[in-house]
């Protein structure tokens, strides 16, 4: 939800600021509880660390010519 600008007077309670998007309005999906837990699961993350390291190494080698 993107709101329209508000210019309240001094005594009028103001609405949301122009362009302010509330988290509930983002179109992106919310990660499941399982996904969030996996992001800090030590064995899974140890595996991901190795995988990310490999990806980065491959890209770095390619960039270094």
């Amino acid at each position, binding site marked *: 939800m993107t709101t*329209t*600008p*508000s*210019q309240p007077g001094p005594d009028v309670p103001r609405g949301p*600021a*122009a*362009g*302010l*998007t*509330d*988290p*509930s309005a*983002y*179109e*992106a*999906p*919310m*990660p499941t509880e399982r996904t*969030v837990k*996996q*992001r*800090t*699961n*030590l064995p*899974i*993350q*140890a595996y*991901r*660390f190795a*995988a*990310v*390291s490999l*990806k*980065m190494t*491959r*890209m*770095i*080698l*390619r*960039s*270094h*010519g």
Partner: protein
Amino acid sequence: MARVVVLGAGISGHTAALHLRRLLDKQHEVVVVSPNSQWNWIPSNIWVGVGRMKPSQVTFPLKPVYDKHGVDFRQAKAVALHPEGDERTSKGYVDVVYTDPARAGETQSIEYDYVVNATGPKLNFAATPGLGPDGHTVSVCTYGHADEAAKQLAGVIAKLKAGQRQTLVIGVGHGTCTCEGAAFEYTFNVEHELREAGVRDLAEIIYLTNEYELGDFGVGGLNFKQNGFVTTSKLWTESLFKERGVKSILRAHVQKVEEGRLFYETLDGSADTLDFDFAMLLPPFRGQDLQAFAKDGSDITATVFAPSGFLKVDADYTAKPVDEWKAGDWPSTYVSPSYPNVFGVGIAFAPPHPISTPRKAPNGTVISPAPPRTGMPSGLMGRAVAMNIADMITGKSNTPQHHASMAEMGAACVASAGAGFTKGSAASMTMYPVVPDYDRFPGYGRSLTETTGEIGLAGHWMKHLLHVMFIYKAKGKLGWSMIPE
């Protein structure tokens, strides 16, 4: 005997200096001119800014490293370039003013055979009235700024613990800023710290940015494969904002800041104010105040430098519409088109155009990110220029043969989303190339194999590893040159 003068000792300049020293015999001189006595691993300033690290953990003194490697370090600020020399010398030289406390204010002219401008950005807080540490907001651009930000954040947390609601605005303080990735990192590190302190529910966190969409990061966003689909960094980033309850204001230009209130406009022509208790807003960058003079003393600053103050190099600066942008517009040797012994690297070179699509509000205000050129690309440029200069000095070639175009290199970007060995997280991203090349990679402009992204604790470990590894490398310790840029 040749003398190479490197102006600046950030990632690009320091990398160039160390490689030059490695590649050149001791008969040749390598001089580094930098106004700062300390080297700073800037990516970790984020952790200083939330109090997780001390400034001493992200810095070290430059002089002992340069003494060890035989680099002549002069703590001074470059103020003028004389690429043609003058009536008394045909050699180019640079005027400097010492910032070293022992010689403060003393001026000197340093002749060179080759000069590398790696002076980085001028933090242009003045572009937005009231912005910055001398105004009403904090910054994490330097370790000193970040330390002050941490102190103010601690005050906010104390108020939250006392039951007072607080509004925190984090983002960019001008429509033409770059480094949105740093603002993103600080946003989620602050959010993480508030959760750790048990006060998240009383805090409203607003990310304010000049990006057209979340996940743009000044590189026009990314596409990568995930679970059998090609997804976007927009969706990926929005999902994190949703999960962590962070509000956003996109497509915004901050007009001015007063105590506890900022004034902004957005791309659709709206204007509004936003009250805050804490604001970390990054400044726009421009080139350092470095002038250039011809042999006869006439001012040639506009010839050597772009209006933004960045050094013109071997880029195609012809103004053209977005759909005519090409990878070949981007420089690859970073040599000045006017002077073959003058180079500009890192943030100090003038990019030919942005990477994100440029946009203007109805009143003409530019609201779109400038292109980032920090970190790995900066290091690669510094190394390529060092190799080219060494080759030309030793007679291996007469022209630069080593290339480091941002349209032909990738970048690894690890954006912290919270510190902690077991509870931290970061977005680990790779992109190849940094500047999209739609001829080589039709459709998305980048390789879908080499462009990746994921969030998790592994990213935090990776960022910490990079912190340790690059400080080790920058100290020039055993095997430093084996660590890639």
